[in-house]
């Protein structure tokens, strides 16, 4: 009898969490649509296309002026026999997109270079972010000569500049989303 009561309470809690979760998150598509590298002048350059579907909470925060951060993680590894794969290249890139109320424009800033581009609309800004191209991943010297290697990419979008406590406590609100790893093999 007591066990049933606990089971019922657990079911109610789980159901409530599911309903809350469903209300809090909009399962908009957020994924790495396509990615590839090409060798340009001895440097492997990466092009990535993303579907930047934001959760409702993140979208509302963005619309209220809270900046968004897009983080792109790139890894290149070489398989080894009987040993874990060796990482030959690792790169993390970050862009911030924020609304400038004075200019009434959406500014996309490359956190590594400091360059920024403004866009008249949010859609343009997100569209600009969803296409990343020509990123130098590694030069051929860093990679095994003529040997194939594995590439993988994933993206994270989150609402930036929130107090850590708020992020911690309201994690279920969908402030942050991360794609699965998009992996492929490169044959030089």
């Amino acid at each position, binding site marked *: 009898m007591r066990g049933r009561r606990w089971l019922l309470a657990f079911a109610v809690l789980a159901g409530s969490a599911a309903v809350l979760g469903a209300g809090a998150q909009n399962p908009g598509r957020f994924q790495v649509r396509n990615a590839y590298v090409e060798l340009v002048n001895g440097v492997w350059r990466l092009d990535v296309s993303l579907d930047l579907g934001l959760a409702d909470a993140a979208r*509302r*925060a963005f619309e209220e*002026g809270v900046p968004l951060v897009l983080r792109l993680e790139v890894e290149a590894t070489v398989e080894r026999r009987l040993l874990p794969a060796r990482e030959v290249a690792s790169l993390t890139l970050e862009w911030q997109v924020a*609304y400038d*109320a*004075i*200019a009434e424009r959406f500014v996309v800033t490359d956190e590594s270079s400091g360059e*920024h581009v403004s866009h008249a609309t949010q859609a343009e800004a997100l569209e600009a972010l969803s296409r990343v191209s020509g990123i130098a991943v590694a030069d051929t010297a860093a990679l095994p000569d003529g040997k194939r290697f594995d590439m993988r990419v994933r993206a994270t979008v989150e609402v930036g500049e*929130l107090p*850590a406590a708020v992020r911690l406590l309201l994690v279920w609100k969908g402030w942050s989303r991360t794609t699965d790893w998009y992996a492929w093999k490169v044959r030089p």
Partner: protein
Amino acid sequence: MIRRWLPFAFGAGFLVWVAALVMLAMTAEGPQRFGEFYLLILLVNVTGVVALVVLIGGRLKDFVRDWRRHVPGSRLRGRTLLMFGGLAIAPLLLVFTFSVTFLTRGIDSWFHAEVRQGLTDSLELSRAALDMRMREYLERTERIAGRLAGLSRASLYFALDDELRAAGAEEFVVTSAGGQPIAFSRAGLLHALPAVPPEELLMQLRRGQPHVSLQPAPGGGYQVRAATSIRAAPGEGGRLLVATYPVPQRLSDLAATVQAAYQQYGQLSYLREPLKATFVLTLSLVLLMALLGAVYGALYFSERLVRPVQDLIAGTRAVAKGDFDTRLLRASHDEIGFLVTSFNDMTKKLARAREETERSRAAVEAERAALAVILARLTSGVISLEPDLRVRVANQAAGNILGVDFSASAGRPLAEVAAGQPLLAQRHEVLQGRFEAGETEWREQVTLRAEGSRRELVVACTALPGDAGAQGLVLVFDEVTQLLQAQRQAAWGEVARRLAHEIRNPLTPIQLSAERMRRKLMRGLAASEAELLDRSTQTIVQQVEAMKQMVAAFSEYAKAPDMHVSEFDLGALVRQVSDLYHAQDSRVAFGLSLDPKAALLEADPGRIRQLLNNLLTNSLEALDGTSNPVIMIETKRVGGQVALTVVDNGPGFQSGQLEQAFDPYVTSKPKGTGLGLAIVRRIVEEHGGEVQVDNAPQGGARVRITLPATAREARRAEARREKA
């Protein structure tokens, strides 16, 4: 070890918790502080809550276990717990409610409508100021575009440089209608080619509308970008002029500040509810910790408060069980400590009192044991009675005298004990009569009768003194039956001796004188007179002879015992005597039942022969006139005793004779001296035996004699008799 460090751990935990509370207070200053401290506050509170839940769980488990087992003090602890908990929880909830209200209002105060409006106004003001500048730059650009119209590409560079300097712009770019740069001029280094104008700009210009926009500058601040179409020279395609103007530093900084403030405010505004929820959650955690702390404190202090009471309860229980050596440890100097001291004093005094009581009881027990020994040794019967005539105690002699077993009579009414006990019942009747008459101090001699025997008792009654009147009665009585009989026997012996002495002496002269008178006078008298004389003298002689026999009997009765003990065959003696009497009177049938085991008897055979003679003489005399007279003689060995029973089928003893059957001169026969059974009894007693007379169930007199089989047994019997 853990208990030793527990207070320090609690103290440290409490200090950390207070520090966390101070931090929480500091977080109210703004979101930055909140971000810095919140995780620490959260960690401290969650850790504290978990620790307290564990501790409370342990103590509650103990408490519930004690409550279910009805451990002394658990109820008091429960009430104390409720009281402490209630006292702590109510104000905590009050403080929590007010704190939540203050906090939410405090956060709301960050977002006053006036602040928002002010920021919006600042933003509008900034935009207005920049709009004026932008319109000015657009007009300036349009004028320049007018001047550049129709210029060739070669001359365009020079013109652009001149216009750039004149206009104070940062960059002028002339592009084709598709946006491809044709010529450009830039203030500063020309380290890079100009970028293609954005699509939105080109589309706007294609629609025939000039473009002007405010652009965030790469190094901070703002730039104004203005673009317009250049009237094309004949034969050339359309051109566009894209100009970039700097915003004055002061204005740019102010606008940037307004933008940052507006952005921060918007962000805060958006986080307003989550922040409030976080604060409420934090406060709830703090409240929960405070509540748990209060509950734990209530548990801890109620336990500490109740523990001395539990010790006292355990102590009182131990005292109730008789353990007066219980001492409690005085752990405090408050009222409980005083109570513990009083308890210890009380147990000490109780222990002393018990020792004294033990000593007194031992003394009383010794006295009682001595009294019991005395009572047991007493030949007098002693019965102690309660005021309601219940038996308190009776000694062995009382039982022996009254023929009652008093061993299980303590506490029972005397009337109940006397039921079926004729001697005691008679005694009870007398006692009841006296008692109802209010007589408690008396002394009397009473005669108790039962089963043909008679007991003479001298009874003394006295009341036991007590604080609240008489505490009962004590009856002391002695059986004087033997004594009286002995006195009577002694008296009768003296009478017999005197009679024998006084009468025997003149009898012989009387007899001789009568015979001489007859001899001398017979010859001179006439026949008739001689006959008279002869008859008279014969009568005198016969009577004298009868008196001689009587005197001889008296002499025999009074004669001091002169025993000649030897071992002889009792059966042979019985047969010999019975044959003799059968020869004298053949009409009497003798039935003998002689036990071979009882053949040998160590006694005076002459006295035993006389005993048998007396018994058979009595029987023969009693059987005179009885048809089919029979005398049965039986011997039997019973332990160390030999039983001799003589039964006839005569008329038996008459009512009232049995009690005095052994008294001298008590006889129902006209010629009897009344000394036969008296002598029998004397002989039996001389041999240490007992004799009883009664009527046989089938009729006729029955005499039962028990004699010790040996002289040793006789001495033992004599000793027992003397002891009794």
